[in-house]
């Protein structure tokens, strides 16, 4: 037997899971050293190690799938399940922060003055930049759908255009949100309002940046002819992730920005 007689992918041994685990250890211990002792070396090493791990691990997946043909139908099905389960785990991650927010805001304690927003907190006006942010992300949902359809119709020009518009909208959202952060009269240490606001919106912002990076990777892969009109799971995974990020924002906007003001 010199070749496999099944369609599954037996992955070659790889160092990246080990380097990933090591980088996770460096990141966690590095954060402790930074928070308590202002010492950043471990954290920097951890960030470097995790970035290199991610880059090389995903590069290898692209090599295995696009160049070596290992991503057969059942393999792709497994990748789909994987991405869906990952996104579900992220839903639970955000559920925690929404739980914290609702726990504190539905029954405000005497410390807050018995009402929400607490005394002394002046929330951002939900009808100003936050509403623009909502429009930006909704529009980016439209453009990424356009990109997907163009890709499926083998329209290279339009799929590149639509994908780059989606990325631009993602960057615009990040820019607007960063400027909003500098406009708030409250910080993360301003009581329970500050904590819930910045934990929820902060992690969301991080996910926007991750999603934008994923989309940018897809853009370059598309330019390098990695995708076909019928096989482009990397793009689909990025699109699912992007829609997830959009939905989380909608919940954030309605709960924290609008109802919570």
């Amino acid at each position: 037997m010199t070749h496999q007689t099944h369609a599954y992918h037996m992955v070659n041994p790889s160092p990246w899971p080990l380097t990933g685990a090591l980088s996770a250890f460096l990141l966690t211990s590095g954060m402790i050293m930074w928070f308590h002792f202002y010492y950043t070396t471990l954290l920097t090493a951890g960030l470097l190690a995790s970035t290199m791990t991610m880059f090389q691990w995903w590069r290898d997946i692209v090599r295995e799938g696009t160049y070596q043909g290992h991503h057969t139908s059942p393999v792709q099905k497994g990748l789909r399940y994987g991405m869906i389960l990952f996104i579900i785990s992220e839903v639970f991650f955000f559920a925690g922060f929404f739980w914290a927010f609702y726990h504190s805001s539905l029954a405000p304690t005497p410390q807050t003055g018995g009402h929400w927003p607490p005394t002394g907190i002046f929330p951002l006006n939900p009808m100003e930049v936050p509403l623009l942010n909502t429009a930006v992300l909704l529009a980016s949902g439209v453009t990424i759908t356009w990109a997907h359809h163009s890709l499926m119709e083998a329209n290279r020009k339009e799929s590149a255009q639509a994908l780059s518009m989606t990325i631009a909208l993602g960057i615009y959202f990040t820019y607007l949100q960063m400027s909003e952060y500098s406009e708030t009269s409250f910080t993360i240490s301003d009581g329970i309002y500050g904590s819930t606001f910045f934990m929820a919106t902060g992690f969301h912002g991080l996910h926007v940046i991750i999603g934008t990076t994923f989309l940018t990777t897809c853009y370059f892969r598309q330019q390098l002819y990695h995708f076909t009109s019928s096989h482009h799971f990397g793009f689909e995974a990025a699109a699912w992730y992007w829609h997830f990020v959009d939905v989380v924002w909608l919940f954030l906007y309605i709960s924290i920005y609008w109802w919570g003001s």
Partner: protein
Amino acid sequence: MAEEMKAKLKNYKTAPFDSRFPNQNQTRNCWQNYLDFHRCEKALSAKGDDVSVCQWYRRVYKSLCPISWVTDWDEQWADGTFPGRSELAAPPSPASSVLLPRW
């Protein structure tokens, strides 16, 4: 009205059942009565009326609240940092003052 209140105060044993707060956690009961005492004093002394009727709320919160809470809140009240809204009507929420420029 004031005579009824004086009679109630004379016969006060402990805080009566308040159906607004039927459950085991009586935090809100304590808080509400503390707030109501201060609001009552503020409103009646502004109108120049007899403030002694407000003593009912004081008796209730003194019965219900942990002493440390009352101490803390009294200190905050004296400092002007008490977080509760002491006006009878809640002020308009800051987010609704759309016309106020914040730049």
